[in-house]
């Protein structure tokens, strides 16, 4: 059955922070396929939330070129992270070195930085809360 009012959109930084889950990349030198799947799942969930926020506030940003530039940058970074998440490592039955996540980690950091810049524009007081939530 379809919900009556559909999904509630995230339109504020506060709402975004409440919905995000902090992603912790494995610290061990060798990582298992299960750990990779788990971290990629968490990253994808955060990407979806960031996209939802960007799409919700983008129409209100047309009057402000600065906001538009930064929101589009965040959207590009989110797509980049999703693209990295989609890359599958082959021959991965035994644990592998953690460097197989290095590109994903770098892309995620860029996305995190873009989100912080968006937050700096919208709610400067919440910059650190958002950085921790990601």
């Amino acid at each position: 059955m379809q919900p009556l009012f559909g999904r509630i959109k995230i339109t504020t930084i506060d709402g975004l922070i409440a919905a995000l889950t902090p992603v912790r990349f494995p610290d061990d030198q060798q990582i298992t396929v299960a750990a990779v799947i788990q971290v990629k799942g968490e990253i994808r969930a955060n990407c979806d939330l960031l996209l939802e926020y960007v799409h919700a506030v983008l129409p209100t940003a047309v009057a402000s070129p600065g906001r538009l530039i930064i929101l589009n940058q965040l959207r590009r970074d989110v797509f980049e992270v999703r693209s990295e998440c989609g890359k599958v490592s082959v021959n991965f039955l035994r644990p592998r070195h953690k460097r197989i996540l290095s590109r994903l980690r770098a892309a995620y950091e860029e996305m995190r930085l873009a989100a912080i810049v968006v937050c700096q524009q919208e709610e400067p007081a919440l910059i650190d809360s958002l950085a921790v939530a990601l």
Partner: protein
Amino acid sequence: MAKARKRVPDRREDTLSRLADEYREALRYTGELRRAIDCFNGPIPHDSPQRYLRQDVGDAILSYLARVPRGKSIKDLVHELEEGGCIFGVIKSPNEIVTKVVKAYIQIGRLEWTDRKQTLVGLSQKKG
């Protein structure tokens, strides 16, 4: 009469509750200050130590570069923005944030590198 000693979990909960109260009050006060500041029109004077408080990083960089004759390095921009009261937080460094914004603005054509080594940033000279 001897004071009844509280258990550690109770003390912890009391402390947490007090901190949450303080935090909520600080947020409310911050919001009120922000609304009060927003009641005033026009920019904050260029020589004020809080001149970039109402601007985001991108607008602050554009307004600074519009006032100076030549391109500036990322380090200069960070210094100017910090001097002007721009808020960066403590987790990510101002250098990372400014570099990210500069790259986004260069990609869109609002800023450009003014030297071949890509160390100095200036306003874009392209028209339209």
